[in-house]
């Protein structure tokens, strides 16, 4: 890629489809759910039966506006739904209800943070609301492809699920950081929709799907080169790899005097390269026209401001603020973000723990057990309040660190809250001087030689008495207090 960048400037563009997590579909009352029995979440309208009419999901509109606001877009005072027409069996009506001009949201931007903390601003052309298509399963062809298949099955459960399509403006100037920017852009969009709560944002389920446009132009040129569109790249890692692979491929073609074909391409994970799809021209004619069944979406300032007031803090800004407040090192903070426990640490601190303690638990024992059990840390069952309670138990010397770690495991096993577990399992540290003194006397009587050595000035020999005491109290003794008692006795 380095070689390619000596000759060419990279131009990127992204179309990201975000599936909204509304209860029902965008234009019907069918349930919006993933993984149900095929064709179980379907109304007559989703199948395009004659005489059916769409209905507008008001929550979907709210979500579209929220997402537009989070992307710093202008919200259209009036926009319409349009019919985008093409024959394909995954669309019940053979047109997709979408938006033409204006989209509900347009002319925005989003700041994307690269690995070294540099901020790259990506301009947003538009974000419009539309409906998803159904899913085709091809039977009999190689690798589930339509080629050579004998028949195809259609599942219309996804048909009509609300989508927001976010279209970026062409992105120039990323150069060698184009793949990194692609990854950071997609994860920023994911963070934003997750923070807004408008999507489940699970990329492996296709909740967020990215089409990456790549073109090259000779350095110094002003006219963009011919672009390719790599469809449905569905992870942040894959989008970086697809962009890099496409830059290298296009540079090779151009270097050898060839021309780039304007086409859609498909990302193939196994070969880590893109494969040619269908040719695509700007003249693809979808015969858009305003949907006569659906009236205009008319927004007003009060509505928009109500939604704006509801917006969560921008994820990039939030991270900067938290890093500052918590005083973590860059490495520590990056690890926290990568581990996906930023929210948990924040809640834990809010609940009363110190940033250092919150980080220690979420990145330490909780993460370790979660990893062992193959779940994410926040799904382990340990709450921020539990962490605060454990810290308190340590601070008042009810338990020690070692037992605290055991308590975390017991919480994960569903045994209850920390104090209950400590009580039920009799895990409290023995700090009762009577019991400790008896154990110390016993240990001294059993080890007269050690006592002699301590009396002779060998203070480090104290450890040889603490061991038996801890053993006798099943590890629940406060080691510091044991030491003090020994020294008093021998004193």
């Amino acid at each position, binding site marked *: 890629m380095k070689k390619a960048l000596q000759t060419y400037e990279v131009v990127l563009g992204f179309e990201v489809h975000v599936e909204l997590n509304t209860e029902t579909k965008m234009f019907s009352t069918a349930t919006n759910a993933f993984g149900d029995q095929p064709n179980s979440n379907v109304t*007559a309208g989703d*199948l*395009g*039966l*004659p*005489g*059916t*009419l*769409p*209905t*507008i999901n008001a929550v979907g509109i709210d979500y579209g506006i929220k997402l537009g606001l989070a992307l710093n877009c202008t919200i259209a005072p009036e926009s319409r739904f349009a*019919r985008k*027409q093409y*024959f394909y*069996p995954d669309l*019940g*009506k*053979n*047109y997709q209800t979408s938006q033409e001009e204006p989209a509900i949201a347009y002319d925005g931007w989003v700041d994307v943070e690269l690995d070294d903390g540099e901020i790259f601003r990506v301009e947003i052309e538009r974000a419009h609301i539309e409906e998803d298509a159904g899913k085709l399963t091809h039977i009999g062809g190689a690798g589930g492809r339509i080629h050579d298949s004998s028949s*195809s099955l*259609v599942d219309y459960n996804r048909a009509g699920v609300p989508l927001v399509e976010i279209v970026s403006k062409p992105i120039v100037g990323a150069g060698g950081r184009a793949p990194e920017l692609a990854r950071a852009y997609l994860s920023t969009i994911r963070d934003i929709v997750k923070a807004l709560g408008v999507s489940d944002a699970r990329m492996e389920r296709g909740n967020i799907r990215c089409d990456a446009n790549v073109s090259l132009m000779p350095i110094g040129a002003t006219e963009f080169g011919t672009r390719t569109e790599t469809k449905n790249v569905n992870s942040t890692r894959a989008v970086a790899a697809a962009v890099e692979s496409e830059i290298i491929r296009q540079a090779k073609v151009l270097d050898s005097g060839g021309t780039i074909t304007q086409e859609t391409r498909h990302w193939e994970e196994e070969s880590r390269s893109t494969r040619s799809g269908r040719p695509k021209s700007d*003249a693809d*004619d979808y*015969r*858009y*026209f305003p949907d*006569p*069944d*659906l*009236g205009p979406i008319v927004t007003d300032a009060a509505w928009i401001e109500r939604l704006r007031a509801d917006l969560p803090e921008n994820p990039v800004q939030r991270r900067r603020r938290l890093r500052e407040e918590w005083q973590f090192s860059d490495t520590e903070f990056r690890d926290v973000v990568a581990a996906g426990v930023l929210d948990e640490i924040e809640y834990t601190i809010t609940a009363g723990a110190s940033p250092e303690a919150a980080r220690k638990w979420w990145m330490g024992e909780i993460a370790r057990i979660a990893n062992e059990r193959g779940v994410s840390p926040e799904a382990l069952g340990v709450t921020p309040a539990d962490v605060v309670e454990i810290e308190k138990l340590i601070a008042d010397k009810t338990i020690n660190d070692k037992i605290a770690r055991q308590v975390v495991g017991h919480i994960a096993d569903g045994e209850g809250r920390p104090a209950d577990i400590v009580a039920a399992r009799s895990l409290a540290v023995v700090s009762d001087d009577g019991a400790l003194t008896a154990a110390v006397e016993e240990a001294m009587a059993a080890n007269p030689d050690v006592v002699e050595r301590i009396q002779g000035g060998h203070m480090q020999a104290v450890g040889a008495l603490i061991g038996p005491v801890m053993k006798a109290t099943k590890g629940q003794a406060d080691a510091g207090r044991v030491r003090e008692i020994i020294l008093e006795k021998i004193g």
Partner: protein
Amino acid sequence: MSLTQLTATEMAEKLRAGETTAVELVTAHLDVASEAFVHVNREDALAVAADVDAGKYDHPLAGVPVVLSDVIVTTEMPTAAGSAYLDGWVSPYEATVVTRLREAGLPILGKTRVAEFGMGNDSGAHEAVAKHQAPFAVVSDTAGTARHSAAETGVVAVKPTYGAISRYGLVAAVSSMDTITPVARTTADAKALHEILVGADQLDPTSLHHEWDLATDTGVDGVTLGITVTQPDNVSDDAWSAYQHGVRALHDAGITTMEVTLESLDQARQAAHIIGAAEFSANLAKFDGIRFGNRVTPANATVQDVITASRGAGFGYATKRRVMLGTQMLSTGTIESHFRPAQRVRTAIINDHHTAFETVDALAVPATTIQGKEYESATAGVGASLAGLPAASVAGVHICAPPYADELVYRISAVVEQTTAGAAS
């Protein structure tokens, strides 16, 4: 006098007076059902009638039979919308208007013949009403079709304000103009049917949320009407004479008239033709042989082959021509040269009517023109469809009024029909 000679209102009165039964009414009509019907709903209609006779319904019109144009979907009867593509198809869901008729206890005699997807003037519903095979009918009016057929068969059709009656379950032809319309032999009967069907429906996003009051009947004294003074070229002498007759009756009833000409209407037919074909082409895309209707599968067919063959075999010539025209109208280039100008003409027509209604309460023009071929009926009829106005075709007069003024249309229509009392019998 045979029961079928009565108006719907008279039938209802006789039922309430105990002078006839719903079963007798249904039987009398079923006995004369003709080729105007594509499906006779004998058992179901008689069952509903028996329930009415048993006192299970209290709507004033319960027991008075009705027919449905075959563009309205029903779960008990097939719906073909005049197309071989749908022949034999039974909808899994019911149109809102059918639900309202059932809830009021009106026995549905059957479904009537219709031009393919309702895009033409051939209407078994009008024929059945004119021939006393049903007192009234529920049909669709697209760009004037139902009003034009009414003028030709001598019955009354009153198209409500767009959105007054739910379109849910009406097989869509031209979504922005399709309007469920009552057809009857008298204005009073059309209005009675209208009152059963009208009202907001959450299943139709274009449905109007409005408190409708059609009950008042205070005559037309003091109403100002815009009229045509000079016989237009496309209006026959007979049609002109009928029109003038109607206007005179309105004068006699105390109406004030003044000449009104809406210039934008000159382009109404062309605009309706372009917009109509465009919407029609998109609405018919769902007829692809995949999920419903008659699939044709050629040997070694791809899905595209199935779509092509199913549409090819299922659609008639006029439908194919209109789909191709509409597809062209929305294509790059033509959308700018034809479709968008047609939309601008539509806006001008809406604005012209709005301006006219600042001066007059309603407009009346001759209901029939000699250009009435296919669905390109009377210019004023098309204008009312483009502007979504309530409009009636009665005794040679076409009446339209501002949106929501459906009640005024009925009042004017009632006066006009008195001039030709007995003409439709």
